[in-house]
């Protein structure tokens, strides 16, 4: 059986753990198979969980989150016959598939959409903890926004420095209000449970928000401009489906492969004008064609625009 390990945020984090869960459930529904799932309780359990699952014969073992990288590098060689899939991190081992997403590309599109949907010319970004991964989102978003609206204003907030930063909808709402009071009328939230508060407050304040990781358009129909969807669910689904035949190596999930995308559905249809849809499409094509390169914050820890 395959197995799935969720990172510390837990499987209902409204973010990528939940997406992974959804992918696994879809596989289960379609194939009628069973899988083993584990939620991390503490840092020390990572290795324990990996080893126990490997010993129990789970294959492949999928895990979400860069925090597993270190441990997986240590554990994978001990179980050469087991396949491991790690999401959001590259681990170079012969039996590991590393799935990474080009969040900067999806966020670029979100920036384009925000730029065009904004009437005021000011948009916002609200991140959870100030960590490199979230800067990747921020930087892609900023690039898309500035490319579309060079004179526009971008307001950036991070919620905190403790794990509470991911679970503080009250603070998320307040940050949104602060950004709105500075003129922002489209705000992109990459902040887990805090983002729920951002989307809510945006809906209340009558401004647009952009969801993240999963499709969050349905949370406030007609008020969420779009969501930057990371295809974690698909990756998990694919891995489960491939079973023991998962292909090792780095799998880059980018725009081209549909790994990242903007969610379009009935909920946000009224918000996406032809102009916006066109611009998003154009940008997506340009990126796929290599005409636009979206700078990856992780490459050099800096962002060309701010």
């Amino acid at each position: 059986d395959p197995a799935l390990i969720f990172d510390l945020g837990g499987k209902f984090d409204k973010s990528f753990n939940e997406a992974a869960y959804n992918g696994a459930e879809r596989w289960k529904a379609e194939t009628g198979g069973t899988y083993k799932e584990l939620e991390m309780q503490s840092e020390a359990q990572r290795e324990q969980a990996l080893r126990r699952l490997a010993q129990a014969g789970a294959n492949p073992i999928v895990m979400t989150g860069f925090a597993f990288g270190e441990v997986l590098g240590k554990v994978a060689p001990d179980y050469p016959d087991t396949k491991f899939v790690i999401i959001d991190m590259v681990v170079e081992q012969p039996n590991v598939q590393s799935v990474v997403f080009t969040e900067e590309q999806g966020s670029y599109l979100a920036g384009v959409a925000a730029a065009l949907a904004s009437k005021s010319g000011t948009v916002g970004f609200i991140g959870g903890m100030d960590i490199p991964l979230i800067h990747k989102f921020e930087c892609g978003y900023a690039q898309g926004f500035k490319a579309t609206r060079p004179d526009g204003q971008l307001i950036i907030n991070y919620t905190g420095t403790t794990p509470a930063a991911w679970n503080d909808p009250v603070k998320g709402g307040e940050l949104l209000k602060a950004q709105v009071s500075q003129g922002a009328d489209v705000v992109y939230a990459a902040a887990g449970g805090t983002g729920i508060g951002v989307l809510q407050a945006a809906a209340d304040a009558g401004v647009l928000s952009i969801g993240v990781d999963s499709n969050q358009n349905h949370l406030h129909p007609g008020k969420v401009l779009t969501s930057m969807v990371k295809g974690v669910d698909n990756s998990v689904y694919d891995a489960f489906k491939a079973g023991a035949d998962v292909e090792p190596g780095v799998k880059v999930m980018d725009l081209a492969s549909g790994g990242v995308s903007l969610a379009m559905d009935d909920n946000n249809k009224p918000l996406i004008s032809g102009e916006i849809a066109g611009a998003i499409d154009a940008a997506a094509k340009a990126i796929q064609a290599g005409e636009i390169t979206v700078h990856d914050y992780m490459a050099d820890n800096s962002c060309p625009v701010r």
Partner: protein
Amino acid sequence: MERMPKWADVILTPLISLALAFALSALLILAIGESPAEALKVVVQGALGSSYGWGFTLYYATNFIFTGLAVAVAYHAGLFNIGGEGQAAMGGLGVALVVLALPWPHWALALPAAAVGAALMGALWALVPAWLQARRGSHVVITTIMFNFIAAALLNYVLVNLLRPVGSMDPASASFPAATHLPKLSEMALALGVDWGRNTPANISFFVAVAACLLVWLLIWHTRLGYEIRAFGKSATAARYAGISALRITVLAMLVSGALAGLMAVNNVMGEAERLVLNAVEGAGFIGIAVALMGRNHPLGVLLAALLFGFLYQGGGELALWTSIPRELIVVIQALVILFTGALDNMVRMPLERLFMALRRKGA
């Protein structure tokens, strides 16, 4: 003459309280539609049923011993140190800086140096609140809470901007060199020819923690400083009469307390993760409060309470890992254990006392 025999007070009362807490937990498990017997089996099996489980239980217990001792030492001086979380986090920074700064040839050299680094950083993080309390009267409860947040911010900054290897996604320091890896208890057992607790994080720091218990016991009850700490904690006016300086005791007690909390990093950062990650403390600082209070601020009590919490933590982890019971159940069980053994203990003690008094009267 006491109301009841000492053994009844220190053994019987907590055991009955514990039984009550577990009984209530069982009801709760029933209420959420699971089997208490099954859960109990998983917990006990997972935490104590194998050398493997022990390897985790002891690892968690080690963390809690350090933070529990930290709270206990401050408590003896009448200070409530809620800052274990921040101090332990800073201790982690101390360990990382020491280990990464020099090419250590052997762990036996790196361990003492890292311990000093951890203790110094932890102590430093307690120093400011201590000094402010003694000199400016700023309540140590507030300042240590604030310093927890400040430590988190500082660590966030240092890990993301300074210690993170280039190109790494993970807000964590580089991995520590292999030479500085501490011997795991399993490796030590293997050296003695025993196959014990393979691949578990318990490491030599456990002995450091036990030694710390002993040292704290000596400090508090067998040194002049300990005598003065206790005197000051029990009666500040009497301490003045005896020429005991409030500033000196407050600062020293908090330094020792902070250093103990900081030392936890030897276990989790150096012994387990072998690098510094964000939020490495994982709330052990707060559990230390419960451990100290339940252990009645005595090192032996702290040791036992830490083992109990290590057991619950590991057993609960297993429960969440291998059954469909959510991990929060174990938080509730922990809460009930704290409540019954620590706060509702008189609910058991009072009737017991009456019972023993009645028995005695009949016997007399």
